[in-house]
């Protein structure tokens, strides 16, 4: 049983009609109080179904979800956990007929299609490409096409959550621009594409995120039926991490709050890590005036005095200010240890060795985290291997790879192409080799290649596979008859499928997996990972079909072929989320620093890698969008200069470093390699600031 502090108890046990704005730095026990407050409400007779938990992103609801699954909690209704986007979508699904007439859709009598990020990107690609091809749009901007599409979508979303017409996007961005003139044209291009996308959505009943938000905000929330439903259903509110939420959420809550019986609004100081997604900590602060009561938690519950002192000294160092008087005494050796190596892999070896010694001294691996601004796959892989060699379990924030990089999906899609000659997609020799290698149990790379060379041809743009028996006997012998028979079974299955009308791709994949690949003698037999990836692929295809199936059908384009091409193009890049065999919790966690912060889970030891990198403070630059200029409090007509940029960088770094240190119990280890992973020398602001603190010693 957790022990709660007196301030926590006063929040948890506050009356059923209390509305409190609870704020304070990270790791002062705010969310803990929020979680316990829910248990308190339910245990004291509040129906679970009348409680709404609102968070900016789903992972932030994790502590609440865990508490709600706790066996001690009385059975009953379900607590609703939502993001504002989820709330909008759910309301639209329920109340669509109420507003369909006013929605501006060309066919209001037909149901809308909800777009995922992926399917929105797919449509955006279709809309933008002709502009680029025929009218030279975005010629001066150096950016990968997929990021271009996603940034235009992002702009639409920002306009929706910040609350200005999407038609003002270009003008807003342009008026703050100080750089190259050609860029102004790019903003106008982005505006045109955003308009065209919106028109397209309205014409074909497509609801992307921005439209969902706008329709909810402008039509559903003001609609008495919908509003009554929401206010009647939810009587108690917990809204956590408000500083990471968008102004729209804050508007909604400001408006909704009088209707709740009780409310607990929670906000962190010095955060706002989702700013690039539209989060607005300044906007969150106004909610304090709407609540009857304001409480601030200030006592750090996690970090040691030495780490707290380091944090206190690092803050002015980052801000390039003199240390204010009265700072706690610096005990740097207890809080920080720095190690320098010439080369990057040497530094990683040092990290692994140090982790081993910590574990040997009794630290559970789960109490150690390895952080960097970004984690390259090479870093992730190398460090994991080093830790495995030391017998230490590790986990990483990203258990997945993009679809097109996943060998299993690659193999499945190759087989799909082989089964559908009418698509006229001819996989390369190596694609077929790797597909056979995975599909046929016991096949080795040498034989797979030999086999492919003989049986696979592209004839008149169509792939063909020949029969095993047509191979010369001595080669059959080299491949072995057992493997040959398995190949033949695969070929027979594919050719039998070819004989009939094609199925939708997701159905095809289900059958291929169920009837063949999961059977004895084939590669996916008893392999859970591959089964899971297949399921994930099927789900992605399904979603794609729901979102774009009708449009493609109308244009007489085979959905499966289009899906394949989009995966190849990188427009569809679904990541699969591992559902089975989750990694052990007691494992060293490797993550980008921001991911660690958003997981909000303190640890005893932190390793900071690439301390010289700019990624610690650099905003994700996006040539077509801008989180600050598109935020609510940006004065239109002001110019975004380098001074703004520097200020924002320092602020980000300070919030990040402080957020990390507040989540560190004992010590930070900084690993520096003179030459970075890429062979560059790095001397970023974090390193400079740490150096400054060291010199204070």
């Amino acid at each position, binding site marked *: 049983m957790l022990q709660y502090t007196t301030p926590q108890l006063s929040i948890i046990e506050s009356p059923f009609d209390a509305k409190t704005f609870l704020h304070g730095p990270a790791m002062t026990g705010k969310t803990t109080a929020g979680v316990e407050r829910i248990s308190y409400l339910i245990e004291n007779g509040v129906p679970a179904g009348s409680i709404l938990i609102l968070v900016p992103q789903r992972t932030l609801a994790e502590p609440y979800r865990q508490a709600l699954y706790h066996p001690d909690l009385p059975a009953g209704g379900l607590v609703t956990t939502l993001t504002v986007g989820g709330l909008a979508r759910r309301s639209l699904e329920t109340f669509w007929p109420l507003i369909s007439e006013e929605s501006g859709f060309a066919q209001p009598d037909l149901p809308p299609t909800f777009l995922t990020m992926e399917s929105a990107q797919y449509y955006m690609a279709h809309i933008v490409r002709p502009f680029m091809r025929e009218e030279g749009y975005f*010629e*001066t*901007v*150096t*950016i*990968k096409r997929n*990021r271009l599409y996603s940034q235009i979508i992002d702009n639409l979303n920002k306009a929706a959550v910040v609350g200005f017409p999407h038609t003002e996007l270009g003008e807003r961005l342009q008026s703050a621009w*100080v*750089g*190259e003139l*050609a860029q102004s044209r*790019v903003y106008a291009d982005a505006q045109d594409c955003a308009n065209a996308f919106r028109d397209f959505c309205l014409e074909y009943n497509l609801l992307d995120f921005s439209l969902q938000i706008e329709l909810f905000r402008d039509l559903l929330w003001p609609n008495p039926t919908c509003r009554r439903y929401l206010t009647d259903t939810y009587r108690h509110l917990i809204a956590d991490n408000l500083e990471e939420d968008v102004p729209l959420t804050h508007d909604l809550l400001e408006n909704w709050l009088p209707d709740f019986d009780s409310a607990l609004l929670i906000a962190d100081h010095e955060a706002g890590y989702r700013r690039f997604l539209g989060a607005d900590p300044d906007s969150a602060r106004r909610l304090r005036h709407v609540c009857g009561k304001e409480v601030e938690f200030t006592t750090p519950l996690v970090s040691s005095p030495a780490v707290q002192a380091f944090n206190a000294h690092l803050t002015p160092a980052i801000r390039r200010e003199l240390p204010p008087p009265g700072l706690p005494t610096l005990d740097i050796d207890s809080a920080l240890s720095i190690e320098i190596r*010439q*080369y*990057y*892999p*040497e530094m990683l070896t040092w990290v692994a060795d140090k982790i081993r010694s910590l574990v040997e001294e009794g630290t559970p691996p789960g109490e150690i985290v390895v952080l960097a601004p970004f984690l*390259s*796959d*090479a870093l992730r*892989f190398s460090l994991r*291997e080093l830790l495995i060699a030391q017998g230490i379990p590790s986990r990483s924030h990203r258990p997945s*790879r993009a679809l*097109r*990089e996943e*060998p299993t999906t690659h193999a499945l899609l190759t087989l799909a192409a082989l089964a559908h000659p009418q698509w006229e997609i001819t996989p*390369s020799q*190596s694609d077929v080799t*790797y597909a056979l*290698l995975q599909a046929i149990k016991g096949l080795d*790379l*040498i*034989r797979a*290649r*030999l086999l492919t060379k003989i049986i696979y041809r592209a004839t008149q743009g169509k792939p063909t596979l020949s029969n095993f028996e047509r191979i010369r006997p001595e080669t059959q012998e*080299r491949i*072995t008859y057992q493997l040959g028979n398995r190949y033949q079974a695969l070929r027979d299955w594919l050719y039998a499928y070819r004989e009939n009308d094609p199925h939708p791709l997701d159905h095809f994949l289900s059958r291929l997996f169920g009837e063949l690949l999961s059977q004895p003698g084939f590669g996916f037999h008893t392999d859970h990972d591959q089964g899971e990836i297949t399921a994930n692929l099927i789900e992605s295809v399904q979603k794609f079909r729901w979102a774009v199936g009708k449009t493609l059908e109308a244009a007489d384009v085979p959905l499966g072929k289009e899906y394949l091409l989009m995966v*190849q193009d*990188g427009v569809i890049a679904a990541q699969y989320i591992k559902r089975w065999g989750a990694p052990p919790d007691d494992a060293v966690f490797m993550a980008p620093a921001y991911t660690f912060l958003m997981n909000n889970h303190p640890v005893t030891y932190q390793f900071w890698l690439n301390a010289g990198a*700019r990624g610690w403070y*650099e905003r994700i*630059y*996006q*040539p077509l969008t*801008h989180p600050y200029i598109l935020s609510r409090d940006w004065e239109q007509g002001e110019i975004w*200069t*380098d001074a703004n*940029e*520097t200020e924002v960088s320092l602020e980000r770094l300070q919030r990040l470093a402080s957020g990390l240190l507040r989540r560190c119990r004992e010590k930070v280890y900084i690993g520096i390699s*003179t*030459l970075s*992973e*890429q*062979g560059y*020398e790095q*001397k970023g602001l974090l390193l*400079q600031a740490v*150096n*400054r603190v060291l*010199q204070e010693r």
Partner: protein
Amino acid sequence: MLQPRPSQEKILEYTTGTMGVSAVPGSGKTWTLSLLAADIIARNVLDLDQEVLIVTLVNSAVDNFTQRIGEFLKQRGLLPHLGYRVRTLHGLAHDIVRERPALVGLDVNFQIVDEREGNRIRTSAAEEWLYQHPNFFDDYLDPDFDEGKRDWVRREKLPRLVDDIAYQFIRTAKDMQLTPQAARERLDDLPIPLPLAEAGVEIYGAYQHSLAYRGAVDFDDLIRLAYQALQLDEDLLARLRHQWPYILEDEAQDSSQVQEKILRLLAQNWVRVGDPNQAIYETFTTAKPELLRDFIREADFPRTLPTSGRSTSSIISLANSLVEWTQSEHHLEAARTALAPPYIQPTSPDDHQANPPDRAEQIHLIEKGYSPKGELKAIAKSLEQWLPDHPEETVAVLVPRNTRAQHLADLLRQADIEPVETLLRSTSQTRKTAGALGNILAYLANPGSANKLASVYRVWRRDAKEGENKEVWEEVKELAQLIRKCSHVEDFLAPGPDQDWLSTLDLEEEQEASLRDFREMVERWLKTILLPIDQMILTLSQDLFTTPMELAIAHKLAVFLRQLSNAHPNWGLPSLTDELAVVARNERRFISFTSDTGFDPEAHKGKVVLTTAHKAKGLEWDRVYVISVNNYNYPSGAAYDQYISERWYVRDNLNLPAETLAQLKAAFSDDVFHWYEEGTASQKARVEYVKERLRLLYVGITRAKKELVITWNKGRRGELQPALAFVALQEDRN
């Protein structure tokens, strides 16, 4: 620590303002500049967020400076690596652009394509253009050609020429800060068409479009955009000016105009050091040694470093007489500024680096005109005689072009002399690491190949090659030969029952064990085939490499190949393997890939180093051969000279790349009297080439410490003459 010479002392006294230093070869300018940087840091005048910025020309110099300054700081009890930043111009431009990519229209994840990738994109843009305009150059071809010959030239010669034109056009346009759109608009506004420039703009446009599609910029864009960023945002400029209160620039004679512009914007206190007589990168760039001369003249503190302890006094006076002859006697008036004082002065006898004792007889200016082959034979023979007597000395042959070096290398090998070719094509460790990985990837891409598997075996046992025991390596070669003969690789690596190839061989126990271990290793490697390329490389590396540097290079290669594979999702293993082969041949310059700390001639005593004169810059050897000093490689502007840039199939000796650039410049010139006139640019290009070649000869001569041999050949058709400067030097010595 060594005591600075008086001329060096004067430079170390620098505190603020501008200082220009003209330094002769071997005068210790890197040493002095490093010491100055360390001095400034130690004076405690810098804020914590300020740095001394050192800008130099090539990556190996970056390492050199970094290490030296670090050592000087350590000697003063300070932390190395802090308070200074050493960059090439590209590195600096990268730093600046990375400050705010969005300012110049770049995504934060913008990629930099290196020369090779850039070349590939440009070549394909040029080919596409030529395909659409097959007859564009008809008017420029020699009118005496019949249709058959014209057709042949169009097919065989024009693609290369157009690519060349495109290369120079794009570089120059970027140096002039022109986008394709801006150039296009200007050309459209002109009343008179400029067809060559039109062609250039079209290819430039296609090239930039391809880059943008990849989300990438090239090296020249980096510089162009850095300058643009500084001009666009005053705050950024102010911040960087604050960050770098001192700028020390090395090799300033090779600074391009835009480099000078960038540094001029940034600099408050600016020291430029260089030797205008060694400016040898002018062709195709906007660098001009005159710019440095002007700067030195106008600087608050003009200085010279005239003393050099490198060479014997005879070699010094030969170099000085080349300067003198050029200044006063070159028949081409315009070429007389190619070289200028200060003359090289020997050090005082008590100097820590006193000149070697003079041996005038060790300067050989060979009058005889050889055939090209005969010249190489003579050099090989000379080396064959010299080497046995000088096992502790260093020697290099400076060739005009790589192909010449290859021929010479073959001849030397025939005489059992293994030449050092590192400077021609590779940097050692990167090449070895990339090469080893490349061999394995090549096998994995073609796993049924016994040949490739045999190479993998040699890679796996490569330590034996460098080991003391030659027999071990012989055995490795034998076993590799055996693998090569394995007709079905699967019978070795994944044998079915009773089909194990290994058991059919009659091997000694140790040999069999080696092959079994090898099999186990390769089985593991074969399983990596489905991993992403970076993980595959890292996995292989764990088995292959042991030293920190090898592992670091492999790690970088892993990241590099992963980026490539992200950019080209359809590339399979063979294409990626090709890229590794390119790295192995060192065609691909890794920017800031600092595992190679430059070439050290002293590490190759008793061996023959082959190098181009360009690559030899900054280095020195006891004995130096400068070869092929004829009027083709070193023309003097005489009527009978031939020029590499004037193609034989183009009419009127036109240098079409130069003509194209002249059209571009005319389009943007406000001076009506400098309108484009055909042929003028070709003539001007000749003069520039003549001047650059004089400086190249000067560089060649000043590489020698004790002995110098200069030879020439008559060319394949026997029509070439000795270079005029060479003749003048001979006369001077006689």
